[in-house]
């Protein structure tokens, strides 16, 4: 009976959203100068292995696989104020959920996602041997996603606020931040927090950073996910930048029936002028 109820519940439009990212273009670092602008693309592949309720796999092997293409842009008026826009496109998303008899039912989603606009306000500081910034960031989520069998993006208006602090030395990077979102619909409040630690390296012609990034995602329905993993950023020639990252869900608790225990891979390329 429980299995039947869970199966029916899973047909409701529950939250299957991906993490609303705190990261901003370009690679969250640039441009730091007036009139600077840039754009970046990245491909994201995410696979979640099980359908969870609480911390346990209610339906083991009922997976979700998502392939996304992100287009993001940034413009810096003055060094302390930027406008960023992030538009995802669902190349292909497919999830397995239980039908009324507990067997697998496949649902798919494709097409444009919701647009995120942000206005990061920065306060820079330069101390002895370190340079960094504080960030305050109001955000707006604009619903553009269409209707499919299920939705990666929730197609709802939302408002968010983000706070961040970061600094770099010649060798190390430290970044910490959090943001919170409220929605004009059924979606619960959610927050996304991150702690990024990095090691900077210099090559003969350029430079890069190796990061260990930890993310914590919380939704006000008892859902919480702790994911972490390495990332590599490389500055090719001050104009072209690339980044690759992998994150693994190390702790996943779903307040409602949802997919979890996932891995995410991202490959990004950016241009800044």
């Amino acid at each position, binding site marked *: 009976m429980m299995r039947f109820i869970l199966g029916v519940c899973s047909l409701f439009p529950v939250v299957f959203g991906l993490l609303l990212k705190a990261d901003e273009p370009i690679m969250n*670092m*640039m*441009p*730091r*100068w*007036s009139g*600077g602008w840039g754009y970046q693309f990245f491909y994201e592949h995410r696979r979640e292995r099980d359908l969870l309720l609480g911390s346990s796999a209610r339906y083991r092997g009922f997976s979700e696989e998502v392939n996304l293409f992100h287009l993001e842009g940034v413009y810096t008026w003055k*060094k302390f104020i930027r406008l960023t826009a992030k538009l995802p496109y669902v190349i292909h998303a497919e999830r397995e959920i239980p039908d009324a008899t507990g067997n697998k039912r496949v649902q798919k989603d494709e097409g444009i996602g919701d647009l995120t606009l942000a206005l990061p306000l920065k306060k*820079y*500081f*330069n*101390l*002895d*041997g*370190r*340079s960094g*910034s504080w960030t305050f960031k109001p955000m707006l989520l604009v619903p553009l996603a269409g209707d499919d069998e299920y939705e990666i993006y929730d197609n709802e208006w939302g408002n968010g606020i983000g706070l961040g602090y970061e600094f*770099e*030395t*010649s*060798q*190390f*990077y*430290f970044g910490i931040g959090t943001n919170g979102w409220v929605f004009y619909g059924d979606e619960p409040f959610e927050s996304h927090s991150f702690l990024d*630690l*990095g*090691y*900077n390296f*210099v090559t003969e*012609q*350029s*430079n890069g*950073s190796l990061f*260990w990034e*930890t993310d914590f995602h919380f939704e006000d329905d008892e859902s919480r996910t702790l994911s*972490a993993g*390495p990332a590599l*950023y490389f*500055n090719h*020639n*001050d104009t072209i930048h690339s980044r690759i990252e992998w994150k*693994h869900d*190390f702790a996943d608790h779903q307040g409602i029936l949802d997919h979890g225990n996932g891995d995410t891979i991202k490959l990004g390329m950016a241009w*800044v002028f």
Partner: protein
Amino acid sequence: MKIIHAIVLLGLVFFSANLIVADDDKDKKEATPEVRLQAAKEAMSTHTNIAILYVKGLVCPSCGIGVSKNLSRMKGVDKKRFKRGIEMDVKTQLVKIALNGKTGLDKKDILERVDDAGFVAIEEYKLHDDHLDVHRFGAGASTEVIHHLKK
């Protein structure tokens, strides 16, 4: 699963330890004036017709890209040398600017462009006959010679 958790923990400890240890690490501090002066002298003897700036806080290559881009667009910069005319050294906080003429660069413009990139230009190193002068920027782009050394 326990192994994976252990790897995560080790990763965090490794990176955190580096940050904590870095408090006592000389690399975390800016170069001393003596080190900068020595680096400037070496650069002046290696390269001809360049300007050298000390930019406070210029310790990370990626966050200094704006400095490079802004200075590169100045009139009088020889973009064929260095990286579009600019070479930054995050170990000494010195920025080398390749010049294509003998007239030098407009000081006010330099200060504004560095400031616009989120940093502060503190000093300019100049060759004066066979001497190396260190000019400290003051209010209104005025300068004061604080060192006068034989090259």
